[in-house]
């Protein structure tokens, strides 16, 4: 399992109602149900992933995050999670607002575009970074809104979002001292626990 997903359960209370936006094949929900006995619901748009979720016994609803979440009631979930989907959204800031409306707390993970390897790639080659984590060409990619750790925190300040906890995952898929000291340089994936 991706390391950012392994960091998430520590911030979720046992038995919580969890909404997972862009839940993929449901790996995180499955882990949360096993480890934390949560009541989980996933939203997904990929037909095969939806079938995979249903086959694993998860509750999943076909819904496109880009078309809004107005069908969900205020504060109707304990935690709303969105792992590695922020950069694919047409209006990430509005989706975060919606997450904070629907959930008492939220957890967001995203690839940090300011990681040294991205900076190095762009600096040395003068081309948009392509890596194992971001394998797409610039013209054909689901990732349309990359941001950095710093950018995200600026957004939180601008929109009065409280950061409850944060962590970054380094290149070796673990938390590291360097990542703690300089997250914007050494974090590959950032994990933020937020509320309003």
């Amino acid at each position, binding site marked *: 399992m991706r390391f950012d997903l392994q960091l998430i359960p520590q911030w979720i209370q046992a038995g919580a*109602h969890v909404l997972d936006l862009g839940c993929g094949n449901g790996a995180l929900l499955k882990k949360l149900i096993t480890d934390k006995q949560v009541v989980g619901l996933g939203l997904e748009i990929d037909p095969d992933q*939806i*079938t*995979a979720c*249903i*086959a694993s*016994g998860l*509750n999943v609803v*076909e819904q496109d995050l880009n078309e809004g979440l107005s*069908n969900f009631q205020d504060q109707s979930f304990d935690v709303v999670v969105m792992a590695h989907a922020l950069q694919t959204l047409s209006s990430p800031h509005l989706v975060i607002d919606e997450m904070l409306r629907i959930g008492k707390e939220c957890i967001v993970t995203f690839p940090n575009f300011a990681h040294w390897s991205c900076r190095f790639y762009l600096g040395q080659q003068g081309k948009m970074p392509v890596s194992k984590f971001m394998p797409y060409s610039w013209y054909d990619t689901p990732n349309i809104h990359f941001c950095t750790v710093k950018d995200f925190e600026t957004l939180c300040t601008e929109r009065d979002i409280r950061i409850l906890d944060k962590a970054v995952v380094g290149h070796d898929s673990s938390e590291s001292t360097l990542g703690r000291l300089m997250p914007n340089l050494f974090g590959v994936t950032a994990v933020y626990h937020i509320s309003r």
Partner: protein
Amino acid sequence: MSEQSVGIVTPQQHHFDQPITLACGRVLAEYDLVYETYGELNSDGSNAILICHALSGHHHAAGRYENDNGKPGWWDHYIGPGKPIDSKHFYIVSLNNIGGCHGSTGPTSINPETGKAWQQDFPTLRCRDWVNTQRELMKLLGIGHWAAVIGGSLGGMQAMRWALEYPDEVRHCVVIASAMKLSAQNIAFNEVARQAITSDPHFHDGYYIDHGVIPKQGLRLARMVGHITYLSEDGMGEKFGRALKTGNFTLGNDEEIEFQIESYLRHQGDVFSASFDANTYILMTKALDFFDLAREYNDDPVQAFSHAKCSFFVVSFTSDWRFAPQRSREIVDALIAAKKPVSYAEIEANFGHDAFLIPNERYQNVFSAYMQRIIEECS
């Protein structure tokens, strides 16, 4: 015979002599139900599935009849060994609802009080009357609860009603191409169909059996209108386009021209009007129009669904404009707000409302995945 078929099936019939009070207040003193079953009930009775049929459906959902070269049952693509509703694992019950015209008591049956066919005097029915009579059949078959109640369209309405009326007797509710209530446009189409029937000179205020005739033209027209609304514009275009059945457009040619779509609709109308009862059509469309899941729950679908204890699987089809995906999303939203377990798939399909009957890889996969979960719970 394909391996994936339940094979040769034989309908069964039971006479229920316990009176049942209907939603309209009238009492049906006795009635017959015709049904089919596929697969075997397991030892703890945990694998029974109820199939609820739609407007023009009946008990023959899967397999074929002996000495009959006709079509297999109406949902044969989805019921059978290795299919989503797998007869190797489930005991599947499919009946003809009361008010129908395929053997269960309905307007063409004899009213024991008069010795003549009920016709227009048959009581008005609501969805809950079907649920209540289905429950009598359930008891007859020695079933304590349904592993799942499954229905498309009007059948989905029955499945939802089951979940609210008898929450302890339903584990899963599968609602396909359905709605919590019909829109005005939908009621309008049903009214056109009813008007087509009642304005047929052979209708005789609904007592056409007494006159030894049937309002065939009206029923045919009703079905043709209905059929258009069950398909999508794109689906029709793809299947028929502007292709001609007879004639051509060469100048100076006076031969009669018939489009394929005209021929198809006429054929559908002919087949239907020869096999379906006009009073049943009126009765069924009215039950469809009257259905409003949340009416008795302060018109609040969330309050309505709060009574359910089962898990829900909701499916819609992109090109279905008679029971549009938005109607299914309303069901899903209410279930989420009521904190009920729900999964939802919106299937890309070109066949309009009829898509729920037609093979479609994604629909089959996701439906099978959901049913597999139920199999695991039953074993």
